[in-house]
């Protein structure tokens, strides 16, 4: 009886004693944890990824673990690595970036990272949380919120030094650092600098997106003719017919441009009319779309409307270099082409980050050659 009572007491002691959570120590390995920065003025997302193997056993005084554990801290997200999951067959799909499952959707994780980085950059530009709240209050009272111009920086470092400075790989995907390199190269070339530049294969060019002007949007669209990415608002059954017409009419126009020729006016006119009908057809769908879906739908059609205007101009025939898809181009020729048509680099679509890293290396190397030639 006494032994039995002692046994029960011991069990209760075990049961009531707080134990260490096993999620961080056992198998499978923990999810990459985004480490917050205490410096709001400069934020580089860091990931703390813990992995290891051990055996845990309950004891009278708590859980005892025997094994090993390693912590890795990096500025690149281990979840993006192909070889990181140590026990891939043990991970299930789904989960969220905070749920302890490392097999997360990269696009969601990337969006979170970009949002966090943007929020921190906003804080670093003098906004701060208090100002963010105050700005909302000003907006509610009907005032105009003054926003600092992120491009204006009286203490901006030397353009070339800035372009060649080490950049966080995540930052490269926004296109900003590529544009810094583009600007620096253009400046240096304007002073007469010349040099050999790397070859860019068609596959790499295909993963690059342009931005900053209607011509850039047109270029992106034309390169995707035949495989247009319609926004989700166009999944509505009421838009299926107009969607098919848009694709067909646009493909007819794009084929000329892809061949380095100006599109025929009849095809342009037909396509323009289809775009206008699509605008009208989208209006009733907007009311049943979330704000993001609605703006994506409108943006898509506005890009098409702008593309019509761009393709009516004299430079339409040279917007795409037909050699890009067949032979590729060099960095120097790409820079020349972008400056001719006032193109900038746009943000990397999800999954194309490696291409942007490669392009960054190519541009940086060319700039280095131009500025450090003997």
């Amino acid at each position, binding site marked *: *009886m006494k032994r*039995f*009572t002692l046994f*029960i*007491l011991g069990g*209760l002691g075990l*049961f*009531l004693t707080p134990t260490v959570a096993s999620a961080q120590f056992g198998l499978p390995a923990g999810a990459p944890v985004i480490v*917050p920065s*205490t410096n*709001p003025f400069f934020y580089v997302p860091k990931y703390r990824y813990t992995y290891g193997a051990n055996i845990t056993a309950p004891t009278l005084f708590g859980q005892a673990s025997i094994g090993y554990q390693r912590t890795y801290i990096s500025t690149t997200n281990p979840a993006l690595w192909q070889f990181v999951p140590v026990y891939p067959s043990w991970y299930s799909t789904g989960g*969220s970036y*905070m*749920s302890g499952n490392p097999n997360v959707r990269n696009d969601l994780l990337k969006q979170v990272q970009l*949002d966090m980085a943007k*929020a*921190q950059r*906003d*804080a670093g530009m003098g906004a*701060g*949380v*208090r100002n*963010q*709240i*105050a*700005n*909302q*209050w000003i*907006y*509610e*009272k*009907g005032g*105009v919120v003054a*926003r600092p111009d992120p491009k204006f920086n009286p203490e901006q470092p030397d353009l070339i030094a800035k372009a060649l400075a080490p950049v966080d790989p995540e930052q490269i995907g926004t296109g900003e650092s590529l544009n810094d390199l583009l600007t620096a190269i253009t400046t240096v070339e304007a002073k007469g600098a010349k040099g050999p530049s790397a070859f860019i294969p068609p596959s790499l060019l295909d993963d690059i997106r342009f931005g900053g002007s209607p011509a850039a949007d047109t270029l992106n669209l034309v390169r995707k003719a035949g495989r247009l990415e319609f926004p989700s608002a166009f999944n509505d059954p009421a838009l299926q017919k107009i969607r098919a017409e848009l694709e067909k009419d646009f493909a007819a126009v794009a084929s000329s441009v892809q061949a380095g020729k100006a599109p025929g006016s009849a095809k342009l006119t037909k396509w323009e009319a289809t775009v206008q009908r699509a*605008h009208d057809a989208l*209006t009733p769908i*907007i*009311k*049943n*779309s*979330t*704000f*993001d879906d*609605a*703006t*994506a739908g*409108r*943006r898509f059609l*506005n890009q098409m*409307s*702008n593309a019509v205007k761009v393709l009516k101009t004299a430079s339409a025939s040279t917007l795409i270099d037909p050699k890009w898809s067949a032979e590729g181009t060099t960095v120097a020729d790409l820079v020349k082409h972008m400056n001719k048509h006032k193109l900038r680099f746009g943000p990397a679509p999800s999954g194309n980050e490696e291409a942007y890293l490669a392009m960054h290396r190519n541009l940086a190397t060319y700039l280095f050659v131009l500025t450090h030639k003997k």
Partner: protein
Amino acid sequence: MIRHIASLILLGLLPISALAQPQRVAVAKTTSPAAAFAARSPTATKFEVLPANAELHTSDVILALPGATLESKTGAVAVTSLADYDKRSPLPILETALILNPPEKDIDLAFQLDRGRVDITNKKARGSAVVKVVHREKKWTIKLEDPGARVAIEVCGRWPAGSRFKLVNPKRSEKLAEPVASLVLLVLKGSAQVEIGGTAFGMSAPPGPSILEWDSLAGAPQQPKKLTALPDWADPTANLTPDAKKLVAAIEKFRALRAEKPADAIKQFLDSSDPVEQRVAIVTLGATDDLVSLGKALIEAKSLEEWDFGITVLRHWIGRAPGQDQRFYQHLTTARGYTPTEAKIIMQLLFGFSAEELKSPETYEVLIDYLAHEKPGIRNLAVWHLIRLVPQGKTIPYKPNGTLTDAVKAQEAWKKLVPTGELPPPPKK
């Protein structure tokens, strides 16, 4: 043997059952006239207006009208709620709410400051008074060194412009995104030692290190900043403008009416023709979480200004703490009959837009598209934004309680002002 086992099981279950019900202990009392405070216990659904000299209990959500004062039971500490009458404060303060915490050793008063502004005063005849203030799980231990030492604390939470509403499935244990929060602590008189997260700061009233700020993004407070003089918002009751004096008078009138007829005060103020009184009522509806009445007040708004301010109160409501956005979404879909898509549209319109989105013509196009929505709430929210983003559009006639036909006419006028695919014209100087 069975008796032994049963008693052991009961022994184990007792603490668990005790933990399930928060204990209510009277740790303070009001020192203001009747109806300056309202309180809601953990098990209640509505706020109860408190009489003069009422006891204040732990775990109750306590709403304080501006000027309301409470004292700890020992009389060591007084806490006064203040309002931002003239909009001078660094943070937008609409109302003040706190939850008193159970007594702790060596702490004269402990409470969670949910939102608003309080001034804390050492009322002891001798020695220091220690107050523990909690906000978003951060604990601030404030030692008011001398009798009469006084500090002001302001707290506010909001969703930053451009935040995205994300519906969270609680069954999947998804983590909530949180609105940002900012806290400002200002030493008004005497000196104080403030400890947070193991770091202690010595502070004093100006001239000296007087002001300390914290926000939910940075996590750790920065060093106290030195001030040479108290800022003008330190005493919100000083140098009031005529509009601010009207507000003070309206709040006192509301308090007196609430003391006499608690059930009628809000309705009477809502029906008032005085816009200041309408605002007091709308703020109170938001503060007391009466979303049904707040929605009704918006639908029945007699003027654009009344309805406009109601949207501000709603934005404040969803941003004041984590989870408020989810609660409001559920309210829209369950109590107000909105479809999930419509509710998401409303949530996003309440959240607002980032600077990048405001540079995009599509943002304005979609807002103008929403003007012809069947649901008045959506078209009204669209107008709420459009008149702020494009001030020239204020001249376009629009009524929040108008018909869809009227809204379509307004939409045509807006389309002329902001053509498709273009950004709005710059405001006239």
